C-alpha cells in the first residue's frame, strides 16, 4: 500500500500566542516549529497501515526550505520518502496549496493508494486543502476521520472504511481506493521517534520541487489576540467552605431547577 501524507510546518505554540508588531504573523522568535497533532496522527496511521499491509509512506510538505526539518521529524517516525514543495515562506492560500499538492502527487494519474491529511492546519484552519486535492485528482474524499480500516481484495487494498463520531452517532464511510482522507487526533497515539529512525531521517535525501502560485480570494489583513483574556475570576472560597456559594451560583444560573 503506497501512502502519501501531507503535513504543514507551523509555529509551536506554548503558553501564549503572540503576534509580530506589524500584526501579520505569529511571533516565532521564542518558539520552534512543528506540525499539527492531526497530521502527526495521519503519519502514525500511515506507518501502521504500511507495517501491517506492506508498502511505504511518503511525507510531503509545502513550505519554506526549513520545512525540510518537519519532513525529517516525520521520516523519523517511519516514513521513507520526503518531498518538499519549496516556497519563499509566504502564506499560500488553500487553493494554491491544493493545486501544488495535486500536481506533485501525480497530476492526472495518482500513484498512491491513499492520500492522508490532517483535518485542518493548526495555524490557518482552512478545513479544505484535502477536499480540493481530491477534486483536482477526481478521487473520493472524507474528512475528520477517527477510525480507518483497509479492506483488501486478494492481495490488493481495495476499499477503506473510515469512521467518525458526529453529534453522538458513529458515521461510517466506505470509499474505493485510491482515496483522500483527513484525520483527527484520537485516531491513534503517535509513537516517539526511535534512535535508528532519527539517524535514518538525518541522512535521507529530500526531493525538492519549486511550484508557482497565485493568491486566492481570501486576504489576511491583520492578526490579533482575542479580547477577554486577563480577567480575574471571582473566588467563591476555599475548599468545601465554598460549596454553599457554589450551590447558590448554580441555582442562580438555573442549573438546579
Amino acid at each position, binding site marked *: 500500500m503506497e501512502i502519501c501524507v501531507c503535513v504543514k510546518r507551523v509555529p509551536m505554540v506554548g*503558553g501564549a500566542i503572540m503576534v509580530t508588531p506589524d500584526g501579520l504573523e505569529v511571533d516565532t522568535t521564542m518558539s520552534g516549529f512543528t506540525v499539527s497533532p492531526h497530521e502527526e496522527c495521519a503519519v502514525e496511521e500511515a506507518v501502521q497501515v504500511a507495517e501491517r499491509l506492506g508498502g511505504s509512506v511518503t511525507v510531503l510538505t509545502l513550505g519554506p526550505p526549513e520545512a525540510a526539518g518537519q519532513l525529517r521529524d516525520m521520516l523519523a517516525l517511519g516514513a521513507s520518502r520526503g518531498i518538499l514543495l519549496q516556497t519563499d515562506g509566504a502564506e499560500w492560500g488553500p487553493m494554491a496549496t491544493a493545486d501544488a499538492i495535486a500536481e506533485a502527487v501525480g497530476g492526472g494519474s495518482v500513484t498512491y493508494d491513499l492520500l492522508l491529511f490532517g483535518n485542518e492546519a493548526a*495555524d490557518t484552519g482552512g478545513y479544505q486543502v484535502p477536499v480540493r486535492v481530491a*477534486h483536482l485528482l477526481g478521487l473520493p474524499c472524507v474528512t475528520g476521520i477517527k477510525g480507518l480500516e483497509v479492506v483488501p481484495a486478494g492481495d490488493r487494498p481495495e476499499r477503506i472504511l473510515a469512521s467518525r463520531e458526529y453529534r453522538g452517532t458513529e458515521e461510517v464511510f466506505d470509499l474505493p481506493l485510491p482515496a483522500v482522507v483527513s484525520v483527527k487526533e484520537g485516531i491513534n497515539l503517535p509513537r516517539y521517534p526511535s534512535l535508528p529512525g532519527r539517524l535514518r531521517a538525518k541522512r535521507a535525501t529530500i526531493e525538492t520541487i519549486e511550484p508557482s502560485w497565485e493568491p486566492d480570494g481570501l486576504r489576511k489583513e491583520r492578526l490579533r*489576540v482575542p479580547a477577554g483574556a486577563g480577567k480575574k475570576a*471571582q*473566588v*467563591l472560597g476555599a475548599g468545601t467552605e*465554598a460549596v454553599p456559594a457554589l450551590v447558590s451560583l448554580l441555582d442562580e444560573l438555573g*442549573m438546579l431547577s
Partner: protein
Amino acid sequence: MTVLCLIETDAGGGGVDASMRALAVARGLAGSADEELAAAWFGPAEAVSPGELAAAGVGRAWAIGSAELSGYAPLAWARALAGLAADPVTGSAADPAAGPLGGSGWISAIVAAATDHGNEVLAHLGAITGLPMAANCVSAARIAPGKCRLVRQRWAGSLIEDAVLAAPVALLTVAADAVPADAVLADAVLAEVRPAAAGEPAGGGGDAEVSVEVYQPELADGDLTVLAAESADRRSGVSLASARVVVGGGRGVGGPDGFAVLEELAGLLGGVVGVSRVVTSEGWRPHRQQVGQTGTKITPELYLACGISGAIQHMAGCQGAKTIVAINTDSGAPIVTKADYAVIGDLHEVLPALVEAIKARRP
C-alpha cells in the same frame, strides 16, 4: 441578492444550535447590504418550523431532498446547494460560462456552521465552483459587491484574523462560539417565539411569513460514492458539542477512577463530562470527550473545569461557554484568570461535597 444558510436539523425537530448561530452571522451579513436571508436544509419540509425560521429572520426556505439522497453525503450535499444557488427552480446554471454558479446572481453568499458536516460540504462547494472558502468566521459584512470583510478564527480561536474575501459568492462557515446562544433570534425577544404547532402545513406558519419550498437536486455521477452509514448502536445520547452543562476533568482528577464523581455531578446537572488532552493521552478517558483545539469545541451554559490548568489549547475549546467555574488547588493556575468564578481547593473534596449538597436540595 440573498444570503443562503445551510441548516443542520436535529432528530427531535428544528435546527441544531450551531446552525442557528450560523444563521445569526448570515443575518448580519445580509443586513450589512440590505439583502434577503434564506435557509435550506436536507430532509422533509416539516423538519424546521416556519416559526423558528421567521424568528431567526429568514424570508425564504428550501427543504432539499430526493429519493436517492437520504443520508449525509458530502459531495451530493454540495452539488445540491450549487444547483439551488444557480437556480432554485431548475437547478441549472443560467450560463455556466458566466461564473461559478452560472452568473444567475441571486445568491451573494452561502453560509454553514463550522461543524464536520458544514466545513466538509462548503469545502466541496468551493472545489466544485472554484470559489475560495473561509472557515470558522465569527462575523461577516459586505463592503462592496463581491467583497466581504470577515473576522475569523485561527488556531482554533486562540487568534483572530481580520480578512477580506473577494469572491462573487462568499462561502463561509461560522465558528461554534461565534455568537452567544441568546443572540440567535432576529428580534432577540425569546418570549415571542411561538413554536409552530405540530402538523401545521409547511408555508402556513401562522403569522410567520416563511414559505418552505421543496427543492429536488440533480446529482452527478459519483456524487453518492461517499455516503454516511450510521451505526445506531453507537449512539451516546447527549453530545459534548451541544451539551448545556459540561463538567470538565483534567490531570488533577488523578486517574481513571477519579471520574466517577464528575459523572455523578454531570448527571445531576443534566450535562456530560469533558476532559483535557492530558486525560486522553494518558488513556483515562476516550478522545471523543476531549475539549480543545484538537478536541471538541463546546458552547455550554456552564463549564465546570476541575483540575484543569487552562492551557491556551484547552481554552480554545471552551471559550464559548457562557459561564466558566474553575475548581483548582492552585490560585495561580491560568484557568483562574480565564474563568468567571473559581473555587480554590482539592476537587476530590469539593466535588463530593457539592454532589451531596445538590442531592440534599432535591426531594
